[in-house]
């Protein structure tokens, strides 16, 4: 899931690129098929990423010794209302 998340932007950009190449219709058939397959896979991955993602919230607290510690954020005051 994390790799998907890291590449969501690239996946969306690649998908748009593929759709445009496909719609120009001038790619050789073999390439069209490969692109079609890749595009369909990207649609599936991106859709899954969006549907399954859970918001992650952390807080970076400065400690007395000056270090900054990252902790999960939640609790009484700031529980995110994730659908």
């Amino acid at each position, binding site marked *: 899931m994390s790799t998907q998340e890291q590449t969501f932007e690239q996946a969306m950009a690649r998908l748009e690129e593929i759709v445009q190449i496909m719609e120009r219709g001038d790619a050789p*058939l*073999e390439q069209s098929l490969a692109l*079609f397959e890749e*595009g369909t896979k990207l649609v599936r991955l*991106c859709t899954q990423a969006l549907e399954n993602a859970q918001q992650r919230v*952390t807080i970076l607290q400065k400690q007395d010794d000056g270090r900054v510690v990252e902790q999960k954020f939640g609790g009484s*005051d*700031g529980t995110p*209302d994730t659908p």
Partner: protein
Amino acid sequence: MSDTVTIALSEPGNQVYSVTELTLHIKGILEADPMLAGVYVAGEVSNLRYHSSGHVYLTLKDTDSVLRAVMFKPSAMKLPFKLIDGMKVIAHGRVTVFGGAGQHQLVMDSLQPDGIGALFLAFEQLKKKLGDEGLFAVSRKKKLPVFPRRIALITSPTGAAVRDMLRILGHRYPLARIRILPVRVQGDEAPGEIADALTFANRYRIAELIICGRGGGSIEDLWAFNDERVARAIAASRIPVISAVGHEPDVTIADFVADVRAATPSNAAELAVPDRTELLAYLRTADARLIRAMNTRLSKTSERLRVLAASRVLQSPENTLQDRRLALDHKTDRLLSAAQRILAKKRESYLRSVSKLEALSPMKVLARGYAFARDAQGEIVTNADTLQPGDLLKLTLYHGTLLSRVEEIQGDNR
């Protein structure tokens, strides 16, 4: 002349003071006066001098009188705005006598512009200063990332603003990781903390986007976002910053410097990320577009196959070839209809069928290096024994045709 003095001195109770003694006496009286210990004075600033020690010296005057005044460094540092000569002010302080010169002066502990508010003046002054430096220039504004992976919230970890932002960010685009840098958003410590958090976020590159702000409040509550340190930290940020201070009508210096100004923290969250619902709709559209394009591409291929199958190269009276052509036509039809049927159902197997289809193209065969051989009469040659050395042979390649002559008959190579 000297009599007068003598008489005065001879009066009982009269005493001769030294200058210092008299000065100290006056000082004692002035400084014992409760009214003079804390008094408001309205006047116009003149002879203004910001001393390198941090003290501020000036003269307050009106049409008839002048009053020397000083503000020592600790108080001067708290002045939110910069004084200028000619400014009308109301000063507060105590009246003292300045030892050496024996002059009374006002030691000011606070000062505000007469007529307009001190904060308003400070705001305008800083705005002008930073504007003159070009910090608000449109050319400095950075573009926001379309799909930010990580977003830093520089705000109070408690309160409605952070909750609103988390809720909207989580609803619209849960893919973004949120990192909260907790800071105080009002009070004396706030500007330093906010500026430090901005610097920290940049030093460690903790996000691709920063939202910096707080919920609504009075102008004093929002004042940290009019602080020069905060403004400069935002301007120095290499990570794009959305300012999100207060409500719609509240405008702070931070808003001018930020790459994008949001009307409210909620609005900032909306500007920060794309909307999942819209993205899913886009993905559905993209899927449909892919299928439509693939269908079109396939129809084009099948059309080309039919044209090729009917072309002159294959329009030969030679039976074998005729049979092959028919077989090809047949296969083409079958594969195409199969392909179309499968496409509607199942993409993967559809893809494989279509690959086979392409492999059947006669042009594809030629492209792999095969050639058609025809004799002088234009008949397709399938048997070497039908020719003699010296006979002409026409070879049709993928690109172009060769007119060649037979050198030697080598017999059956099957």
